[in-house]
């Protein structure tokens, strides 16, 4: 009986119901989107491996480590192998097409990442081809790269002397099963870069951005980390060794306080929508003063009248909220492609969906409170006299 009454009331003002549910819908959709962005940032960190360590310069992200560090790091007890990474920072066609490119060691790269699988082409071809590269699935989809294509990249840190772009032959396309490693990167052979720099075909210094260190399963990472750091305590370049997870955390912290900015915006959105729904419910409560008087005169208790308005508000918000969460889930894959370069692995997780619903319920309850209380305190005689 109660539900039917609520439903009829909502339908008595179709435009208002649709618009209010619509506001809640927009707010929850936006909040889901903001929350997903924040949790995407943090989930990549949580899923990172603790068996992979990163050795980088303790001075600056932009300082390379000497090549000679490789064999010394490899000699530290508990280290299985060392793999070189170098940031390339080039441009594909236009500055707006940003994606990451790294020079890596073909022989150790793939075996360091069991999360990666080759979905097209062959990794062996990549290993055998000096100018070869592998590209992530998202990147291949975005720019239409196929196995056999030649991708021109303009070097900014490492410019070719002939003034032409670098060219990398796509030998394989990879997919990743973990948010810790994205599908939007181009990996090429470190040795191709090194040889080009050494032969003078390109300008820039030979160096290694980070050494990735794979440690044996039964080794304590803390011990390996401090052993490596200690080796270079007095220079020539101080290093800092961290787990992959910590490396990611640092990187996000360096991005500035993005989560705080997004949460502040989210707070303001909540504020605005709360007022909007409260407004609607106050209007609904006021217009229905006479109806409420009749209900009371018929013998409905104060709490029944109170419940009636709260439930109406709740239903309204839940309707908008559930639709928003549903839509967010539906457009997830489209969003993923759109945001793949800035936020790889963007996903609407169960935590985000739950948050969306909790917020909708919260707004509904709070906004129903004021008109509900007013309704429960109404005197039937006075309410009946109201002209509505």
């Amino acid at each position, binding site marked *: 009986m109660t539900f039917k009454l609520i439903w009829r009331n909502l339908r008595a003002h179709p435009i208002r119901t649709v618009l209010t549910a619509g*506001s809640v819908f927009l707010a929850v959709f936006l909040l889901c989107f903001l929350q997903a962005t924040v949790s995407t940032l943090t989930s990549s960190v949580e899923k990172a491996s603790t068996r992979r360590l990163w050795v980088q310069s303790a001075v*600056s992200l932009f300082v390379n480590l000497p090549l000679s560090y490789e064999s010394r790091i490899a000699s530290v007890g508990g280290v299985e192998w060392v793999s070189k990474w170098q940031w390339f920072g080039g441009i594909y066609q236009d500055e707006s097409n940003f994606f990451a490119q790294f020079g890596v060691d073909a022989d150790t790269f793939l075996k360091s990442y069991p999360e990666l699988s080759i979905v097209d082409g062959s990794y062996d071809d990549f290993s055998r081809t000096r100018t070869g590269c592998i590209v992530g699935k998202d990147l291949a989809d975005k720019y239409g790269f196929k196995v056999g294509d030649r991708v021109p990249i303009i070097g900014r840190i490492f410019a070719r002397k002939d003034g032409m772009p670098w060219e990398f032959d796509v030998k394989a396309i990879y997919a990743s099963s973990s948010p810790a490693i994205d599908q939007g990167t181009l990996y090429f052979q470190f040795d191709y870069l090194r040889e080009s720099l050494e032969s003078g075909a390109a300008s820039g210094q030979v160096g290694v951005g980070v050494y990735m260190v794979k440690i044996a399963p039964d080794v304590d990472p803390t011990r390996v980390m401090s052993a490596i750091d200690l080796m270079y305590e007095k220079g020539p370049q101080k290093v800092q060794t961290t787990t992959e997870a910590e490396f990611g955390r640092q990187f996000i912290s360096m991005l500035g306080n993005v989560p705080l900015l997004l949460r502040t915006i989210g707070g303001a959105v909540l504020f605005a929508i709360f007022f909007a729904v409260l407004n609607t419910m106050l209007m609904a409560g006021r217009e229905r003063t006479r109806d409420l008087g009749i209900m009371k005169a018929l013998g409905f208790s104060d709490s029944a009248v109170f419940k009636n308005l709260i439930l109406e508000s709740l239903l309204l918000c839940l309707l908008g909220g559930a639709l928003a969460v549903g839509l967010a889930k539906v457009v997830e894959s489209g969003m993923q492609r759109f945001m793949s370069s800035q936020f790889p692995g963007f996903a609407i997780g169960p935590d985000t969906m739950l948050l969306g619903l909790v917020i909708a319920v919260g707004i509904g309850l709070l906004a129903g409170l004021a008109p509900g209380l007013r309704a429960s305190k109404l005197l039937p005689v006075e309410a009946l006299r109201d002209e509505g």
Partner: protein
Amino acid sequence: MALLPFQYNVRSLFVRKSTALLTVFSTGATVAVLAGVLALQQGFATMFVERGRTDLAVFLRPGAGSEGESAFPRDRAEILIKGTPEIAQDASGKPLAAAEVYLAIRRFKMDGGETNVPIRGVQPMTFEIHGDDVKIVEGDKLTPGRDEVIVGQGLVDRIRNCRVGADLVINTTPFRVVGVFESKGGYRSEIWGDADRMLEALQRRSFSRIIAVLRDPAQLPELTARLATDKQVPAKVMDERTYLKSQTGGLSALFFGLGKFLAVIMGTAAVFTGTNAMLSALAARVHEIGILLSMGFRPFAIFVAFELEAILIGLLGGIVGCVLVLPLNFFQTGTTNFNTFSEVVFSFRTTPMVMVTAVVFSMFLGLLGGAIPAWRASRLRPTEALRRG
């Protein structure tokens, strides 16, 4: 044609105080978000660009997009500084040019966490070039050849070991902080030291960029063209303002994008709220409208009256939104500039532009929100309207 007096709108708002107030606040919150993001963008962009001089040339390695990517070995830097006739000279005949080292180094923030702070190795001529644009506000000047640094005002309260007297370790070399300097632009988020000492500490051999005052800014295009294809010392040359603009593109575009995205979504929600409020105002006023119509007011006048009321709510919402973001002006924030991947410190700036944009946007939301109710009101028939309510 007779329109309803404006006072009618104002009084109508007062009659339905709570509804009007809630609508104003909800619109205000929407507008505040937009204005806040815009103020962030303005603070960031103007901080960089307002200092940019057009008579100051920046030389980078060809192909480099920023000074972090650029490099000039010592011999080439000297050829450029001494062998470029377009560069102005000081009183003693020395070229007004300086080779600088630039690197974003890892530092700890006061509130924990790490960030990338730019350090700049400068030459005595750097200070000549900037003149009063760079002022020491605490402690001493930099002494050439010593392991000393001066710190930009923006860093003092944000980054550890940045107070006068502290030792700031770069790689393995400790540098003594001897002074704090103030500057209008991005320099106030930087640490400055002697260029040669910095190169030594960082184990580097190349300078990053050269800055030089031009005799005549009009010669810049010619200089740019000549050095772009120079065989001996090719370089990419631009004026400082152009350079700084190129360093803010990424983040500025992101702020704009975020602002637009939020404006569209939250704006739509605000229009919904506005429509709701005006519909309820309409429902309560059917009888009144009947009277107005039978008095001879045309439906168009009713339409205008309702729209005006909605726009008035929008205006008030816009003002509330602006008042909400005004305190942000005192906030200083730091964020990573994507183009340089180093931290810049800047303040929110609620410029008149931001305010006007916010208020106009808010009134536009009111206009849209008022459309359906106003249209409905103007379609009422006097006889029916009088009978109802």
